[in-house]
């Protein structure tokens, strides 16, 4: 039981990162109406930019800042594709575009980073913060958790209280109408892409040392991210936050149970399956069908 608890706590930092990724996925879906399969790949691009700069001898802090900027740029690039050619497309087409782009990004990423070639991932936030019932809780875990909570609350407040937030909500509900009343729709949409790109990059930097650190594995963290977003029904940031942390904890717990520890990668899938089966109870005819 104790080992289970230890392992679950070990899943905390991953959980925090999933939560951030999940909140970003909802952010993108709610504001620019795209279910984004490239979310984690964008973050991975930023993370590897940081690693490359660090390996070239740049101190950690500027490397991290440049990495976050690179993530924002990568997000911007995807945003440019989406806003240039797919503004009027339906949700399904947009999702298909990001799924197709994911293949290309992973291919480019693997090539640039040397495939499975090992890189040194500096621990951005090293060390142990405190002991909880005899279990070490790392600073990385504390940071991702605090960051995910802060990001969730900030996003909520920003959308609810600021003028830009109001414009963003208008953009998400009726892009055409928003454009007609003079909101700079494209600029805002690109802003959303850049912000999610930067935030995702930072989240991945923190947990990259805990993962098999190749470009493809980091890109595929989009699966737990979307699972967390589904828990929030692609609308509730808080539910996604809790969902992401839960997925991390369950993964951690599963990896402590001997016979099934190998299968912890299947946890997000089972969560997705359960959430979808549960959420379609009340499905009804809407315009989208």
């Amino acid at each position, binding site marked *: 039981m104790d080992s289970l608890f230890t392992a679950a706590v070990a899943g905390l930092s991953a959980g925090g990162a999933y939560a951030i990724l999940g909140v970003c996925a909802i952010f993108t879906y709610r504001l620019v109406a795209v*279910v984004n399969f490239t979310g984690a790949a964008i973050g991975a691009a930023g993370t590897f930019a940081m690693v490359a700069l660090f390996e070239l001898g740049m101190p950690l802090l500027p490397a991290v800042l440049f990495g976050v900027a690179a993530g924002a740029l990568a997000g911007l690039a995807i945003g440019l594709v989406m806003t240039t050619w797919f503004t009027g497309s339906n*949700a399904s087409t947009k999702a298909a*575009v990001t*799924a197709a782009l994911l293949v290309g990004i992973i291919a480019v990423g693997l090539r640039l980073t040397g495939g499975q070639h090992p890189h040194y991932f500096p621990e951005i936030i090293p060390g142990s913060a405190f002991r909880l019932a005899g279990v070490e809780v790392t600073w990385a875990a504390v940071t991702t958790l605090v960051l995910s909570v802060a990001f969730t609350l900030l996003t909520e407040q920003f959308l609810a209280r600021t003028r830009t937030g109001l414009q963003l909500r208008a953009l998400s509900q009726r892009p055409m109408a928003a454009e007609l009343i003079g909101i700079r729709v494209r600029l805002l949409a690109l802003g959303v892409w850049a912000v999610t790109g930067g935030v995702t990059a930072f989240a991945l930097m923190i947990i990259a040392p805990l993962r098999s650190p190749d470009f493809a594995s980091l890109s595929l963290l989009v699966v737990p991210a979307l699972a967390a977003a589904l828990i929030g029904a692609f609308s509730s940031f808080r539910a996604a936050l809790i969902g992401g942390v839960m997925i991390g904890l369950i993964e951690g717990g599963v990896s402590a149970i001997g016979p099934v520890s190998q299968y912890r*990668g299947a946890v997000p*899938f089972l969560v997705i399956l359960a959430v979808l089966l549960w959420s*379609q109870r009340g499905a009804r005819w809407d315009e989208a069908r």
Partner: protein
Amino acid sequence: MKHASFRAAATTALLLAVLGALIFFLLPKYWVFLVTAVFIVGIALQSLGLVTGRTGMISLCQMSFAGVGAWVTGYLNLIGAPGGLAVWMLIGGLAAVPVGIAIGLPALRLRGINLAIVTLGFAAAFDTVLATITFPGQTTFTQVVRPEAFDSDKGYFLFVLLTYGVIAVVLEFVSRSRLGAAWLAVRHSERAAAANGISIPRAKLSAFAISAFISGISGGLLAGYLGTLVSENFSMMQSLALFAVATMAGAHFALGAIAGGMMIVLFPELLRRLNLPQDVGNVFFALGAVQALSTGETIAETWMRLARKLRPTRAVEAATAAGSLPDKTSHPAGIALEVRDLTVRYGTVTALDKVNLKVPAGTVVGLVGPNGAGKSTLVDAIAGFLYRYDGSILLNGSPLEAISATSRSKLGIRRTWQTTRIAPELRVGEYIRLAAGPISESELESLLAWFGCPGPETLISTVDVGTRRLLDVAGAVASRAPVILLDEPAAGVSYDEALKLGERIAAIPETFGSAVLLIEHDMDLVRRACSAITVFDFGRVIAAGAPAAVLDMPVVQKAYMGVEFEEAAE
């Protein structure tokens, strides 16, 4: 229709035979070996085309299904099960079916994006599982035994080609059947499909099950092709690349599947010969898919469009009556459709307020009223597309509450939509059969001729909107339902055509036996077609009775035309 699918199937079979003979006799052994992979990937692509291209659900785990098939094939090989590869791969395909259904289940009543998420999740999970359990015989290097008659590389090519041919021909038949039409209808509009009595869950699940089966077979073939397998053959990246290529090439067309297979297999070969890294291929596929999605046209569709341009253009042929229409269907006399105290609220807005309406059997009843009066809400409620309403709706005296849209349609309430929702990839005959169910060739022809529609082999995408509106009505009528709800059938139709349409609608009860509830803004059409009309305004019935009398009532003129009482009286 039947002979059309035979012709298409025969063409496919013949083309494959010629292609196969050319490859078999002309190409050197190395290239035959490579081309074998083209057809194996082609089968996987066809399976993906079925779900994604035809039914419009994004599947990102197609290679995982193939992996299930390959794993089972490898296992049967290891234990030396009887029957050989042909039987093993069939069992492998069948083993993938329950997996496919289990993954399809959560996406049944939700939109396609959810399926994309759940399939990506499955692909990731399958990767972990496969990496752990490994393929049967992987560690002992046990080769999967090929069928004795097809043991050489050239022989195995024939075996793969034969399998590809059987699958392609069967798919040709299925895609032209009512099930195939149902898939396209579901992709285009689930609501319209349900209104034609199609069970959406059944259509989606069948697509997923058949797709998983075919994909499983491709996995079995791959096992025989490579001998030993590793989990990387079926990784998530492979599934994603397959998705990108299917999207780019148009894998739901036989042509697109082969073109896609060639790209996946031969492009890396080309890159290898040019001393370029082979993973550049995936970048190319991603860009190609994005390009195809932005233009809305796949490579296969582009080629077919260009080929059509080369052929002399044929004018759209009108249907010619092969014989007289069968006698009208007899439905129970009395009130066919009755609406009692129907109330519908959207939040605080009351869209319909205690509405009462009767449509006697064998009549055309008009329903008019200004925009926003609640006419289409009434149709939605009757046809079963509203989640909740108060009051009751009765078909031939029996209440319809708690009955789904699909079941109501099957019971005999058919509707059309304000804008046409016919899938443009269908042919005229396929759409009518989709709407009507089993219907004889001569009845189909005479029905189309009666409405002045084009012939059954005409592609919907080639006919104008006015004609599609006619087909909407023709489809509903062909089902011989006791009650037909027509929602502004003349919208977008020219004045002359609208008058003709009015005559046709007026004749529906005596010719086909159905009662009609007609919503229309064209008053000439309404006068011509209806024996009684009901007028709505702000969700209430404000007048009902004989057309001439009702339309002259001041309250109706005020509501409908905005004419003030005094002006009208003058």
